[in-house]
Each structure stands twice: as structure tokens, then as C-alpha cells.
């Protein structure tokens, strides 16, 4: 980021912190509630965005995140209720995500099916198959993941509840943000990944196996989405229901682009989105303005459009150069 942008960023952050402090003094319960809701809503979006960005940085579009969330949530729920173990369920979700990632890779990279089609196939099949096989009588008898307090940190006012008293998968997501960031921008794998997304031809001449790396990346990216599905079923909600992903897979794409395909950027975008959602919930709970819920519900989306339009000033959001194109050796 250029120095001027950095300055603006710091200024913005400071402004936000001051605002939070003001609101907290005014009504601590509400402020805590809203901020906790923000972090909560952001987790799934961030995971989806990370899945998407690994693929896209490699040059493969993945619009099937929605389907991946849904199938993984279904797998996680089913296995968890069958085995009585949340851990097994979580693994199952990740596993399903890997499988679906592999399917996408097989279609898009191996068979050179158009990537949009491949993603759409994932989405449609996921919805159809999960509804088809959903065992209605099944329930998660063991209860979902609950908050884990991080010792004395959790007793801090505000930050304690919001950041240090969260369920396990949320913590894991935060850790993953760091891991993916380091992997993408500080490791050899990351360099190669970005290379095949920008100039696959050049990468090939240097000896990188473009197709194999894409295969690998898209598969493990699927694992991230699978983790998101596990989160959805086993931590956020605690059960499965038809079409429960509710469009969040698509939102994750928007978050990914908004966050410029970086983990921290995506998390910031996800937090922003989560904040507007929590805020409009709060407006309703307080009956702040007598506005119909539909209008209040538009808030997150309208604000996002405005911000995205304004942020054009911060430089364009460039796609990786080879995004969406199948790679042909030779």
C-alpha cells in the first residue's frame, strides 16, 4: 500500500476506535452485543472469501462456494449426529469441502470445463443432493460448539466478550487468516500460486507445473469452504436445514473482491458487512426508527454499494491476469 493509503487507513482505524469508545460509554450492553454480532457474522464470510481467493489467485474462478458451504454443512451435521462427536463432524465437513474442491478442479482444470459452469454445477447439485438425502428425524443431540473464554483476557470489558470469548472454530478462523496470509505472500508456494494466476505461460517456462498446482490449490481451497460449512452447521446454528447457506457463498465472493483477494482485507470487508447486519438488527430490537424491516434489511447492501463506489478512488480492484482461462500447455 502506498504511504498515503496507509495514512488514510490509520486515520480511519483511529476514528473507528474513538467511535466505539463513545458508544460504549453510552450503552455498553448494546455496543458489546453489536460488536460481538459483527465478529460472529464475519467468520463464515471470511472463510468463503479465503477459499475463493486461493482459487482466483491461481487463476480459477469458484462460484460454487455456496454449494460447498451447503454440502459441507450437511456432511458435518450428519456425521456429528451419527458419531456424537463435534470433532468428527468438523472433519467430515472439511473432508466434504476437499472433495468438492477436487471436483471443481477436476472439472475446471482437468476437463477444461468452463469455470462458471463448473461452479454452477456444484451449486445446483449441492442443493438438490442435500435436500434429497436429508434425514428429517436427525438432530444434533450433543449441542453445538460453545464459547471458550481465553482466561483473564475474557474479563476485559468489551474486547473480552467480543474477541476473547468465542467458540473454537472462530478462533481457528482468525488463526487461518494469518496462516493464509503468510502462505500467500511470504512463501514459495504463494509466489508460485500468484505466478500461475498472472502469467501461467511464464510460470510454465520456469518449470512450475501449472495444472498440477491449480488442482492442488482449488482442492485445498475447498477444504477452507468445507471448514466454513462445519462452522455453519456445528458452531453458528447447531443443526441443518434446507438451503441454510442462504446466499452467503455469493456474499463471500463479494467480500473477497472487496478485500482485494487478501485474507486481512477480506476479514475487514467481512467485519464491515457483519457490522451493518448487526447494526440493522439492533435498530429493529430498539425500535429506533419506525422503518419496515425490509428497508432496514437493505442497509448492509446499500452501504456496501456506496462504499465500493467510493473506494474506486483507492485504486481499482484488479483481477489476476489469467483468471478464468483454461491453461493449455504448449
Amino acid at each position, binding site marked *: 500500500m502506498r504511504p498515503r493509503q496507509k495514512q488514510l487507513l490509520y486515520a480511519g482505524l483511529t476514528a473507528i476506535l474513538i467511535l466505539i469508545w463513545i458508544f460504549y460509554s453510552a450503552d455498553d450492553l448494546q455496543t458489546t*452485543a453489536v460488536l460481538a454480532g459483527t465478529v460472529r457474522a464475519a467468520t*463464515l464470510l471470511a472463510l468463503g472469501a479465503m477459499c475463493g481467493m486461493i482459487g482466483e489467485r491461481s487463476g480459477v474462478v469458484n462460484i460454487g462456494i455456496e454449494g460447498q458451504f451447503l454440502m459441507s454443512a450437511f456432511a458435518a451435521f450428519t456425521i456429528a449426529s451419527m458419531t456424537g462427536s463435534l470433532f468428527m463432524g468438523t472433519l467430515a465437513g472439511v473432508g466434504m469441502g476437499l472433495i468438492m474442491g477436487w471436483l471443481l478442479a477436476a472439472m475446471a482444470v482437468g476437463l477444461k470445463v468452463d469455470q462458471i459452469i463448473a461452479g454452477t454445477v456444484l451449486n445446483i447439485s449441492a442443493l438438490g443432493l442435500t435436500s434429497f438425502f436429508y434425514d428429517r428425524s436427525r438432530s444434533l443431540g450433543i449441542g453445538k460448539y460453545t464459547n471458550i473464554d481465553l482466561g483473564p483476557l475474557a474479563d476485559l470489558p468489551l474486547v473480552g466478550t467480543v474477541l476473547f470469548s468465542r467458540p473454537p472454530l472462530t478462533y481457528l478462523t482468525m488463526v487461518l487468516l494469518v496462516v493464509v496470509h503468510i502462505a500467500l505472500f511470504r512463501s514459495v508456494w504463494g509466489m508460485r500460486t500468484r505466478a500461475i494466476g498472472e502469467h501461467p505461460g511464464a510460470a510454465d517456462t520456469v518449470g512450475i507445473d501449472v495444472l498440477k498446482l491449480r488442482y492442488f490449490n482449488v482442492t485445498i481451497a475447498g477444504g477452507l469452504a468445507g471448514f466454513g460449512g462445519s462452522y455453519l452447521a456445528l458452531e453458528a446454528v447447531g443443526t441443518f436445514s434446507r438451503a441454510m447457506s442462504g446466499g452467503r457463498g455469493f456474499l463471500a465472493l463479494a467480500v473477497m473482491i472487496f478485500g482485494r483477494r487478501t485474507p486481512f482485507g477480506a476479514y475487514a470487508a467481512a467485519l464491515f458487512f457483519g457490522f451493518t*447486519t448487526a447494526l440493522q438488527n439492533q435498530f429493529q430490537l430498539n425500535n429506533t426508527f419506525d422503518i419496515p*424491516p425490509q428497508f432496514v434489511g437493505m442497509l448492509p447492501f446499500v452501504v456496501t454499494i456506496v462504499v465500493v463506489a467510493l473506494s474506486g478512488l483507492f485504486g481499482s480492484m484488479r483481477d489476476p491476469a489469467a483468471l478464468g482461462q483454461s491453461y493449455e500447455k504448449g
Partner: protein
Amino acid sequence: MTSTWRRFLALLMVFGLLTAACGSDSDSSSSSSSESASSSSAEEEEPAEEFKIGLVTDTGKVDDKAFNQSAWEGALSGAAQIEGATTDYIETEESKDYANNIQLFLDDGANVIITVGFGLGEATIEAAKANPDVLFIGVDQFQGEAIPNLAGLVFEEAKSGFLAGALAGMLTKSNIVGAVLGTDLVPPVVFFKEGWENGAKYTNPDVQTISTYHPGGLDVAFGDPEWGATTARQALDQGADIIFGAGGATGNGALIEVATEEGALCVGVDWDQWGTVPEAHPCLVTSAMKDIVKGVSDLLVAAKAGTLVGGNFLGDVDIAPYHDFESMVTDDMRATIEEVRAGLADGSINPMPE
């Protein structure tokens, strides 16, 4: 011919071939006149005269753990009391299919058709008018004018909401009660909410009621448990200690979230959700019910006996048993609930003053 046309024709051919090839084995005699499946069901022997019951759901599943499911259970229960009754259902995918789905049952010679949900109201009225010999039961369909062969099973949701709210007003220690609701586009949900809030205030004038409706459209409002859970959490963080979850899977998400909070209580909706959402056992003190099962069952029996009257039929509403929380509800509270019940029944208490 472009390849897509070719594909379309191929589809027709393949379906045709498949059905022709395999179809000739499973179908009964070649002299059967029509294509309808009544030929295959004729293989069953009927001891008594067959009484066909058909159920058409709203866009949702028979297993949605609430609305459509209870109507189906009512149908089964009623059918069990009728000799020679057969029941079948169609789950509607799109609301544009309502009329067609009803017609499928009509074509098959159904005696009674149950349609579930006010969305089907118009299609049911039209079908009833066009088929005066067939009886219709419309769940949650208020009849503006009475049609002789159509009984609308309606409920006063505000009353059971009021009862539940009254209980909540007494049970709350923080004096804040919350509600997480499906959508304000569906009037029964609004009635539940209004009743809930008024009931809480009736027994506890100092109580603060906070409620939210799902902000999205009808397509997601009842199927978004993640929002339900997040919003319930927000309400809990604000100090609410009893939460009413009313809105299909969305409401269920709220109930499950509240179950993770030590000491918080939750209230279900439509029927006793103790059985259908076991994840909520730690907090589910009661549910605001509308007895669809009994209503449908009773009407079916009446239909068979020929005593079904057109117009509106008022179903029962009440709150569910307290299960694990029996000890929490003191005798004083029970007495108050009895009073409120009586007051609602004789009209001295109005659950939804304008």
C-alpha cells in the same frame, strides 16, 4: 438444427424410450384406458369404500418441523379414524403450481383435499367452487364468504402468543424479553408477536420487549437459522433472558442458540417443539401452539361423516407443557395462567388491542 435443439429432442426420445421399454412390464393389463395411476392402485383391495385424502403443502416440506408437518400429522390422525382412508401429499415447489397440484388430486378422484397455508387460499377457493362434490379444508385460510364445501381452519394466534408472553413476563428475571421472528409479511407471525408482547406486559408491566423480523424476502425469511441464531445472541447480549423463536428454521436457529446460554429460556411456536427440536431442550420452557393436528383431524372426521360445514372453523390454541421446567413454574404463576386463559376464552382479555 443447432445442438441445443438436438439435445431437447434427445431428451424427449430418451424419456419416451425408457418409459416405453420398462413401462410395459409394470403396468397392468393392456386394456387399461387411462394413463393415471389409479390403475395401479386398483390392485389394492378395499374392504370399505375408499376415502381418498390429499394434502397440498405450501412451498416447504412435509418435514419442515412445523407448519406443513403438523397438517400432515393431522391428516394421518384423521385418516386413522376413518375406515378405508388413504392419504397422500404433494409438496409444492413453486407457488405457481398451487392450482396444478390441487388438480392432480382432483383428477385422481380425491374425496377431501387439504391445502396448507394462506398462500393457497385463492387456488383452494377456485377449486372448491369448480368441484362442489369434493370437500376442501384450508389450513390458515380465512374465509371471507362461506362456500359450502370449503372449511377454513383458522386460529387466533394472538391468544396463544399472549399466553406465552404472560408466562414469560412472570418468568423473566432481567425484565427483558425478546422475539426472533420470520417476517412481517405473514400475518400469523405478526399476530403471535403482538400477542406475545401484550401478554408479557399484562403480567409484568415493567417488562421491556424487544423483537426483530428477518430483514430478507419471503424466500429466505423462514430458512435462515444462522440469522436466527445471531440475532438471538444479540438479544441475549442485551440482557434478554427469554426469547420467543417464531419462524420455521429461522426461529429454530434462535432456539438452539438460546439453549447454549445458561439460565436463558426459549419459547417455540406452532406446536410443541420439544419433540421436533431436541437441541433446544436446555431452554425450551413452552411453545405457543395452534393445534393444527387436532383441527385437521376433527375436520376430516366431520368430512367423512358428512357434517363438514363451509366457512370458518376455529381451531384450538394454547401453550405447550413445560417439560423439564415444571418446577420453575410456581403455583402462583399457574393460577395466573389459568386466569388469563379464562379471560381470553370469554373475551374479557383482548390479546391485540388496536
